[in-house]
Structures are given as structure tokens and as C-alpha cells.
């Protein structure tokens, strides 16, 4: 009888035999870091290379140890885990790198006095040359571009939200999965995939035909952005309207309320938080679009408050032109400083919109209590 109890007392019971000890990953990681540092010291140390070499050594070490102790099936499992985690880390690299680059290059531009309150009107290459050669101030700012972005995006929102919301209502409340509703759903999905530049060309071609060749205004850009924005609004609103419980609609009908009043007074208020956050996300998506604005609104260096007349600047096109065609071709540094400053402002705008969308969804969400 006693003999049956003896294995239990042993440290490695039958259950854990043939398994790596719990500390195995940490031990291999430590060894990989040390060996990696040693290898890198031989060929010239840099932190990025150290990370890559250590990660590869870690994967090789853990998998081969596992293959020896646990057999090939467990080793394959470990290898897959390493690859999956590794791919996630690889995906994080560009995110960190982009945000870091924009912060490092953009903060000097943003801190420039007058960067947010001046336009580029009258800022010529001569000023930039002076700024580089004799250390003068870097003049010019993004006020005109910021204003243009706000105007174009607002107009695009004013066009897209009613159309998108009404379409979503049609799909959920009136479509009954009919042939037209199916066609609209399909083509809204297809519309999501229209390249942004084609949307811009469509708006340009439309206004060339209707108004006259060469028409480039903020309103054309707003139409182009609406083409990109409407499908996003439709999809998100549709999802939100679908999750409104049917009991609410039936309760309203039972009280004798007309269908359109039910939708306006019961269904939409219930779903408004989700709809609002969907619209905010759609704005965040189109506010950074460059190509459609480039082909529809051109680019301007001065303030233009009229959406319906004249070329108009926007933040993305400002970044694009400052990088591709610096104000002073011989001294591009001030231009690239302005471009990075504008990029930082644009990223902050997009992030704030994303954050607002999440907050709106959370704060105005209907109470779940029954």
C-alpha cells in the first residue's frame, strides 16, 4: 500500500514528466538576451538589433529544448506560439515608429510661434532660406489648412449623415430583406472599397460636367469625401438600429404610434449613442484623406473661407505639398518642419475623434436594465 504513495512524494510526478519546467521560458529568455548582447557586441551594438537577435535565439532555444524534452508535437506548438506572438510584436513596430517619428519631428514645428494662427500667405522661399542661413524664425503656419479641413469635413458630414442614416433606416425598418435592400447592402459594401482617389476623380468629373471644366472648390472635395463617408455611416448605423430590441417597437405600435414616429421617437433615441460614435469614426476616417482633396480642391497658401469658390487647403494636402514641393527647393528643412508639425496636429485630431467616439458610445449608451 505504501509503495503506491511513493511516486506522489517525488518532485516530478507522472503527470508533469516529459514537460518543460515552469521557469523554462524565462530561463531561455534570459540566456537569449545575454547571448544576443554578446553577438551584437561583436558586430556593433544597437538596441533594435539586440531585440531581433534575442527574439530569434529565444525561439530557437525554447523550441529545440522542447523538442528534446517534450517531443515534436509540443515543439511545433511552441514554435507556432513564438511565431504568433512575434508577428504581433512586428505589427507594433511600425505603430511605435510612426508615432515616435511624428512626435520627434513634429513638436518643434508645433511649438513655433504662430504655427496654428498663421497661414502660408506671403511666405516665400526667401524667408525659408533666411531661416536656415542666418537662423531667422521659420514663418508660416497651418491656419488656412486647419480651417479648410474643418470646413470640408463639416460639409461632408452634413451631406453624409442624413443620407447614410436614412439608408440605414430603410435597410432595417422598411427593406424587409427584399431585393432592393440586398442590392443596397451589397453595393454599400462595394462602395467601402472604392479607392479614395477614384472618389475624388468622380467628384471632379461630376462637377466638370455639371458646372464647367476645371471646377475645384471645397464643396467638390466635400462631395468626394461623402462618397467615402456614406458607406461607413450606413454600416455602423445599420448595426446599431438592428440591436434595438423589437419589444420597444411593438410597445410603441401597441400604443397606436405611427411607424415613422416610432422610428424617430423610440428607435433612433435608443440607438443614438452608437450612431453618434459611428459618425465620429467616419469623420476620423475621412479627415486624413489626402488624394480626393488633392484632385478636387487643389491647394492654396492663403485663407479661404468660401467652400463654394476657389481652391482650398487642407491639413493632409498641406503635408503632402510641403514635403513634395518645399517652399524653398534649396532649403527644404523649414518646409519639412511645417509638414511634420501639421502631421502631428492631424494625428492628434484623429486620435481625439477616436477617443470621443468611444466616450460617446459609453456615456450615452442606453441603460441596460430590464
Amino acid at each position, binding site marked *: 500500500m505504501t509503495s503506491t504513495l511513493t511516486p506522489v512524494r517525488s518532485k516530478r510526478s507522472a503527470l508533469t514528466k516529459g514537460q518543460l519546467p515552469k521557469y523554462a521560458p524565462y530561463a531561455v529568455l534570459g540566456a537569449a538576451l545575454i547571448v544576443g548582447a554578446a553577438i551584437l557586441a561583436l558586430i556593433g551594438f544597437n538596441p533594435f538589433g539586440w531585440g531581433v537577435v534575442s527574439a530569434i535565439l529565444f525561439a530557437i532555444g525554447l523550441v529545440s529544448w522542447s523538442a528534446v524534452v517534450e517531443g515534436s*508535437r509540443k515543439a*511545433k506548438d511552441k*514554435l*507556432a*506560439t513564438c511565431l*504568433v*506572438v*512575434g*508577428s*504581433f510584436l512586428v*505589427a507594433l513596430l511600425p*505603430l511605435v515608429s*510612426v508615432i515616435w517619428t*511624428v512626435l520627434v519631428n513634429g513638436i518643434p514645428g508645433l511649438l513655433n510661434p504662430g504655427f496654428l494662427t498663421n497661414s502660408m500667405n506671403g511666405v516665400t522661399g526667401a524667408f525659408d532660406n533666411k531661416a536656415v542661413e542666418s537662423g531667422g524664425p521659420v514663418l508660416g503656419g497651418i491656419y488656412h489648412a486647419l480651417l479648410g479641413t474643418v470646413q470640408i469635413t463639416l460639409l461632408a458630414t452634413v451631406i453624409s449623415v*442624413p*443620407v*447614410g442614416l*436614412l*439608408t440605414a433606416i*430603410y435597410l432595417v*425598418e*422598411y427593406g424587409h430583406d427584399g431585393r*432592393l435592400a440586398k442590392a*443596397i447592402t451589397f453595393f454599400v*459594401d*462595394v*462602395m467601402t*472599397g*472604392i*479607392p*479614395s*482617389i*477614384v*472618389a475624388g*476623380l*468622380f467628384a471632379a*468629373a*461630376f462637377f466638370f*460636367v455639371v458646372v464647367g*471644366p476645371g471646377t475645384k472648390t471645397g464643396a467638390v472635395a466635400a462631395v468626394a469625401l461623402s462618397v467615402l463617408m*456614406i*458607406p461607413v455611416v*450606413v454600416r455602423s448605423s445599420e448595426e446599431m438600429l438592428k440591436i434595438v430590441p423589437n419589444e420597444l417597437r411593438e410597445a410603441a405600435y401597441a400604443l397606436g404610434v*405611427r411607424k*415613422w414616429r416610432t*422610428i*424617430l421617437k423610440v428607435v433612433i433615441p435608443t440607438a443614438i449613442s452608437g450612431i453618434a460614435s459611428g459618425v465620429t469614426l467616419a469623420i*476620423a476616417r475621412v*479627415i486624413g*484623406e489626402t*488624394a480626393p482633396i488633392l484632385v478636387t480642391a487643389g491647394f492654396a497658401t492663403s485663407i479661404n473661407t468660401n467652400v463654394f469658390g476657389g481652391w482650398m487647403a487642407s491639413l493632409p494636402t498641406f503635408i*503632402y505639398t510641403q*514635403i*513634395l514641393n518645399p517652399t524653398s527647393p534649396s532649403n527644404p528643412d523649414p518646409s519639412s518642419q511645417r*509638414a511634420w508639425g501639421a*502631421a502631428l496636429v*492631424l494625428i492628434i485630431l*484623429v*486620435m481625439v475623434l*477616436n477617443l470621443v467616439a468611444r466616450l460617446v458610445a459609453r456615456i450615452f449608451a442606453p441603460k441596460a436594465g430590464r
Partner: protein
Amino acid sequence: MTATSLTSTQGAGRAGDKVFSGATLAAGCLILAVLFGVALFLVVQAIPALTAPADKIQGGQGFFAYIWPIVIGTLIAAVIALVIATPIAIGVALFISHFAPRRLASGLGYVVDLLAAIPSVVYGAWGAAFLAKQISPAYGWLAANMGWLPIFGGPASTTGKTILTAGIVLAIMVLPIITSLSREIFLQTPKLHEEAALALGATRWEMIKMAVLPFARPGIISAIMLGLGRALGETMAVALVLSSGALTASLIQSGNQTIAAEIALNFPEASGLKVSTLIAAGLVLFVITLAVNMIARWVITRHKEFSGAN
């Protein structure tokens, strides 16, 4: 009697019903009209370029000779992007759906979505200012050691502004699309299939290989197709990163061009026939992406109908 009085008092309400449902129907039809209009207006504006004599088109050899190198360039850039992005995206999606601790998963998904939130022009600026410089030594190495492959033919570009760099930037931009769609599909895998595999003693990887991936295959394919649609139409990353030129087989020299970048670079200053030529190029791009997207959506809807899971 009561019935008539009821309906008569609600006359205004019935009119409201009609107006409202009519408005929603009109909005729905407007969307179809817009999509139709996109095609129509592009065709109308493109006709002058398609019918013009060959020597009037840029390059002097007609529209076809003008368009095919940039169509090939567009496909090259998109294929590079997909080859790089697909394995990583599937890995990330698996990590979030099956490997990461439950509590972290949604937060990590949000981090990947941040990649999609960064505007394309910022990616372009980053690619031109940072990535191209960092990666050009690697191109020198590729040209020296793998130069016998035509795609790595030297001499390598010293600025790093090549189609391969543009493809890498595109890969970063399509990554979140493929990731979020595949993640949705992976999460839909029937729990019973997964648990059955694990109960038979499968390791986690074997469970994924036997239960998750076969179930998700059509979804992954359509996710890749949608990523392809995005990569084909993406403008800024290529316009800013690539120093364009004639069609070349080598990926590490400057050269090649994509349709979207060609339009963006030339449209603002274009006039006359050049405008039509660029709009015709846009039409070609529209047709290609439309076909890709429609196939992808078709695969998704077909998958939905035949999926026995739900």
C-alpha cells in the same frame, strides 16, 4: 364607423409615414445612383482619352501603351504588400483571438486598430523620411548577394525610395484590415469544434490547424481580397515614397509607378486631354478594385449562407 373615424384622425400621421418611408427609400436609391454615377461620369470624362489619336496621349503611343506599365506597377506594389502583410496579419489575428489573455484581447485589438487610424499621408511621410533611409543598406546587401534574381537586380537605389519600400508601407496599411476581418472569423469558430480537438489531446496549434483554420479559410481569403482592394487604390504611401519611373523588374531600384500615385502627382497641374487620360486611368483602377471587392464580398456572403455554425 369607428374604423373610419380612427383613420381620418390619423390622416396627418399616414402622410408622415409615406413621406418618411419615401425619404429612406430615396436615400437608399441615391447610394445606388452615386455608385452608378461614379462609373458613368468617369466614362464620360474618359472618352476623349480613349478615342484620341495615339500620338496625342502622353508617351505618344496611345492610351494602352500609357496605362499598362502603371497597371503592372500597381499590381507589383499590391502583391508585395499582401505577401508581407498576410502572414503577419493572420498571426496577429490568431494572437488576439486565441493566444492573448482574455482580459487583454480587446485592448490589444484596439491597439491594432490604431494602425488603421493613422492617416495615409502620415505613413507616406514616415516612409519617405524614416523607412527609406533605414532600409537602403539592406537593398545594397540584397543587390550584392541576391543580385542574380531579377527582382533584386542592382545597382540598388541609394535613397531607398523604391517600389519595395512603397510595398512595405502599403503592407502596414492593409495589415489592420486583414487582421480585424480574420479576427472576427476566428472568433466565430464553433466552440464545440475547438473543445473537441483539445479534448482529444491536441495541442493549441493542432487545434488551430484542425478546427480554426479550415473553418476560417473562406473568411481569410476574402479578408486578403479586401486588403488587396485597399492596396491597389492607396495613393499617398506610393506618391510620397516611390521615386517613380519606367517599368523595371528590379524592386530595389527607383522606377515603376502605380495608377493612384500617377493620378495624384499629375492631376493638380493637368489640363485638357491630360485630365481625360488621368480620369481614364482612374476608371481602370475603379474597374480593377470593383472586381476584386465584388469577388471578396461574394465569397463572404456565400460563406455566411453555407456556414453550419450558426
